[in-house]
């Protein structure tokens, strides 16, 4: 079992529905977010290209945040999901410094918080909140260890990229391009 997310940048319109769904589902404090939209404009006029995508914690296979945590509050489940146990976290900030994606933040209550791939929804057989609300259905979620899953098939048939692969973190959120 290896959970992963695949996001089709050609279908994303940058509506921020995923951001709002996450904030509502996970009681994210006002002013914070676990996922966000980026707009990248590449090239020079007249040949320019716009890329929209929804970003979040990459639940890396080689997670630097888990490695540097002094208490073990940051940990990785067997299915690849990286989680933070709030009452083991001392709020030292090491994991935030270690994340090349800046995907973590300090919750106003003191502990460090981040995307959980909606772990609590997966247990009930539901999809992550962001995936379930996407109006253009540009987000896919599933098991990469299963060669027949939707995500495995997409990565087999389409061109894709990951974010900052040069950081060596082996990110598990894939972007179709």
């Amino acid at each position, binding site marked *: 079992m290896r959970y992963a997310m695949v996001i089709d940048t050609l279908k994303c319109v940058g509506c921020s529905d995923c951001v709002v769904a996450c904030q509502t589902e996970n009681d994210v404090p006002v002013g914070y977010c676990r996922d966000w939209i980026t707009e990248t404009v590449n090239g020079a006029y007249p040949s320019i290209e716009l890329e929209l995508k929804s970003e979040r914690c990459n639940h890396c296979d080689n997670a630097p945040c888990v490695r540097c945590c*002094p208490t073990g509050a940051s940990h990785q489940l067997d299915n690849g999901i990286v989680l933070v146990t709030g009452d083991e976290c001392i709020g030292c900030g090491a994991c935030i410094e270690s994340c090349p994606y800046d995907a973590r933040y300090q919750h106003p209550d003191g502990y460090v918080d981040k995307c959980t791939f909606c772990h609590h929804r997966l247990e009930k057989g539901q999809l992550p909140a962001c995936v379930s609300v996407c109006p253009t259905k540009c987000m896919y979620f599933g098991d990469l260890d299963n060669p027949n899953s939707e995500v495995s098939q997409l990565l087999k048939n389409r061109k894709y990229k990951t974010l900052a692969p040069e950081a060596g973190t082996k990110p598990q959120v894939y972007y179709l391009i």
Partner: protein
Amino acid sequence: MQEELFTSGRNIPHIDPSLEIWHWPISVYLFLGGLAAGLLFFAGIVTVLGKDKEYPAAVKFASIVSPIALTLGLLALFYDLTHKLYFWRLYTTIRIESPMSWGAWVLLIITPISFLWVISYYSELFPKWKLNFKFFDDFENFLKKQRKNMAIALIPLSIILGVYTGILLSAFNARPLWNNAILGPLFLTSGLSTGAATIILLAKSKKERHLFSKIDLALIVLELGLIVHMLMGMYAGSEVQLEAMQLLVGGEFTLMFFGFVIILGLIIPAILELTEIIGYKVPVAIPAILILIGGLVFRFVMVEAGQITRYLY
């Protein structure tokens, strides 16, 4: 011409536009930790070599500074935690891969030893404040006999502490300015140099002052070499490292780095120490204090500039 415009719909406190997670207490701790490491290293090595009678400032007077520095440093670290009441979680586990876990355990061992070291010199340091308790005198005599053992333990522990202040930063691959292996030895050298400067400041005899001036001079030359290595390594590195280096060379931290750290904190004190050793009259407090200020500014520059650097994708 290729242009790239990147916008993100995100504005999280302390994360955007650049990290502000580690504040001044971390810089202050890195300085005080390095200072204590330097002082305890010199106290240990002088004692092991059996020269403690000849160099009283190194083993006795300056050693009062180290427990104070460690206590203040630990308080600063504690102050910068955001989930403070759970700090004890550090001591329910040992995580080999986490430099901070290593550091927390080394501090737990070295801080009590630094206090015991001062207690072993209590009657010599504070002859007027005699405590008339028999158990205290017995304890002091016991520690006096254990001084050599404590010194043997202090040498490796202080080196680990000094290197750790650098490794803490260099372990983060996400911050290109910090992510170079030379930061550990560089912070250790800087810590030893600030330790030597404190001993120079407190030394009463010319012999001790000159010995530690010579040691300090060697450390300053070494430190300058390591800084050149660090900059050259980043200059030859990937684009993110090149951008990180440009913060120090030509960017917003240039004045602080070259003005306060390299010129005022290393080169000028080295010249002043050299003139003093040759025999000219120079008040030694000036180079010593310049080195201490330079060491503190160096930590501030590295912690603040490092958090600006990141991967761009």
